[in-house]
């Protein structure tokens, strides 16, 4: 892939996530999305960068802010729209909704609405990858705040002790819901915790998908070689509230506007020449059309059949 093509690919994937979520906000305003959503707006480069170096048979586990992780792994947009819109065509038939869906067809083990709970689960996927010996890795994303959960400490230590092929990606967007991570821990860089587990830890700029891809490639190769887990701390900012109804009264004035100047999509546009810009415009138009098709297809699916409400509790 040429360098330019590569940028365009990254841009397209990030735009798909952004457009998906922007469209969801419209649908929510129109009453088509029940409950709240946690958007990854501004953080797309992390999922896209990591996904760009993964194999289809690798495992991914995310947080409730997981739309981008599923999309970057190739989950069907119609199924995702329908899931968040609580329709039968949803990837989980509307049972999971925005914060808790999974997609077995792409080895996406699921989002998790319990902060930090995904890391032990990802360690389990890494254990099975290790046993199966096919060189698969297990990638798990958590937020900065989640690094303070007991489950995360226990799972990282366990994964390190068993030399499991796991990569922990900390999406450090500065805030854990309404408080700043710097007020909740004495360390400036969360990556230095890795040392306590005897594994490598790096802090990177999470708004550049290429940098993310490079760091992820190193960690994933290490895991595939059987050398154990790595912790990657990717610095970013969310351009929206913690959840879709968050008025962000806790954020200083101007913070979001400033972050918007350096968000991943804008960054690529800022550095682009005229030829690339017109290519990016074309991508935007294509993605917009793709999103509309997916929304129409999602809407065309029925509401879930009430008679199925008790299905799938047991095998």
């Amino acid at each position: 892939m040429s360098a330019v093509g590569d940028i365009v690919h990254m841009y397209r994937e990030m735009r798909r996530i952004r457009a998906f979520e922007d469209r969801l906000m419209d649908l929510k305003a129109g009453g088509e999305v029940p409950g709240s959503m946690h958007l990854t707006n501004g953080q797309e480069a992390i999922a896209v960068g990591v996904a760009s170096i993964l194999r289809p048979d690798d495992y991914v586990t995310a947080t409730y802010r997981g739309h981008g992780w599923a999309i970057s792994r190739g989950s069907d947009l119609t199924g995702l729209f329908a899931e968040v819109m609580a329709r039968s065509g949803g990837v989980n038939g509307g049972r999971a909704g925005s914060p808790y869906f999974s997609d077995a067809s792409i080895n996406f083990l699921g989002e998790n609405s319990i902060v930090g709970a995904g890391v032990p689960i990802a360690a389990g996927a890494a254990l099975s990858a290790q046993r199966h010996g096919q060189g698969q890795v297990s990638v798990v994303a958590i937020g900065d705040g989640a690094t303070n959960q007991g489950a995360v400490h226990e799972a990282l230590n366990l994964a390190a002790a068993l030399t499991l092929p796991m990569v922990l990606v900390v999406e450090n967007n500065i805030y854990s819901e309404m408080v700043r991570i710097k007020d909740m821990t004495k360390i400036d860089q969360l990556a230095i915790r890795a040392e306590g587990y005897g594994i490598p830890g790096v802090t990177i700029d999470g708004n550049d998908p290429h940098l993310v891809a490079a760091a992820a490639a190193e960690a994933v190769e290490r895991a595939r070689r059987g050398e154990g887990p790595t912790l990657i701390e990717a610095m970013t900012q969310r351009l929206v509230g913690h959840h879709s109804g968050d008025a962000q009264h806790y954020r200083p004035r101007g913070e979001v506007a400033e972050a918007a100047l350096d968000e991943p999509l804008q960054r690529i546009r800022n550095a682009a020449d005229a030829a690339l810009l017109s290519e990016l415009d074309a991508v935007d138009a294509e993605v917009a059309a793709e999103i509309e098709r997916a929304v129409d297809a999602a809407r065309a699916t029925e509401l879930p059949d009430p008679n199925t409400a008790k299905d799938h509790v047991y095998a």
Partner: protein
Amino acid sequence: MPDATQTISYIQAVQHGLRWSLEALDDTVIFGEDVAVPGGPFGATKNLHRDFGSDRIFDTPISETAFLGMALGAAMTGLRPIAEIMYADFMFVAMDQLVNQIANTRYVSRGTYGAPLVIRTQQGYSSGSCAQHSHSIEAYIAHTPGLRLAVPSTADDAYQMLRAAIVSDDPVVVAEARMLYPTKGEVRLDAPVEPIGGGRITREGADVTVVAWSRMAAAALEAAEELAAEGIDVEVVDPRWLAPLDFDLIAASVRKTGRLVIAHEANLTGGFGAEIAARAAEECFRDLRAPIARVGAPDVPTPAAPALQAVVIPSAADVVSAVRRVVR
């Protein structure tokens, strides 16, 4: 002091209760996720940090095990902590501290240590809430000896029961109902602090007793209105506390009406309704003129889709049909 009685929302009543505790008791400290400067994820602690400062109210990391354990250690050594677990579902993350540590403290120390602490949380479903944000946890808590459990269903109870919990020398879990937060009612802000425990008859009736708590207490009243139009006279009992349970109140009502329906939002199997039904069968067998009926969610995790939620979340209509079954 504001007017003695005000019409305010359930969540504002909680806020008043917390403010009261900070004013009345020097040893109260409040902590949890997002409770201080942000004023609480649901606004329960609005302005309290401004007025009382970080010594009395502060944010914790997202570390439920750590901060419930911290509440215990602080309570054993002279403070009166009020810890907030944002959604009841997250209590499970810290179940060791709750069940093995906090609940056992008084008993195993033969009373030389106590755990006078409050854990506030909110429970139940809401539209689109997923299976990890919808649990009704009362049976898990009430099953554990050593814990007290409040399930307030009105704004006034939210205020009075929280204050009772705070002055109690036992560990108390106050499980509020998220769906009731906006509901308004008269709150007696200067009422004397109640002791822990005690249910209430919220509607008198002659034909059938409906015991219901939390969100279902209001649903039971709604059902009673509908049934009254059919000539069925429902008595509604809100136990308010599940530990200690005011079973005498329930028994007296069952003796009067001869019929019993129990309604809760939690799953049926092993739900707290089963406990009340068992005790009624033991203690009121000869007074019962019909089998006891229970209303609860089927044994299914809560789905996110409203179309599916509508099937599994109990409503006033479910109470109506259960009552019709037992009076037929």
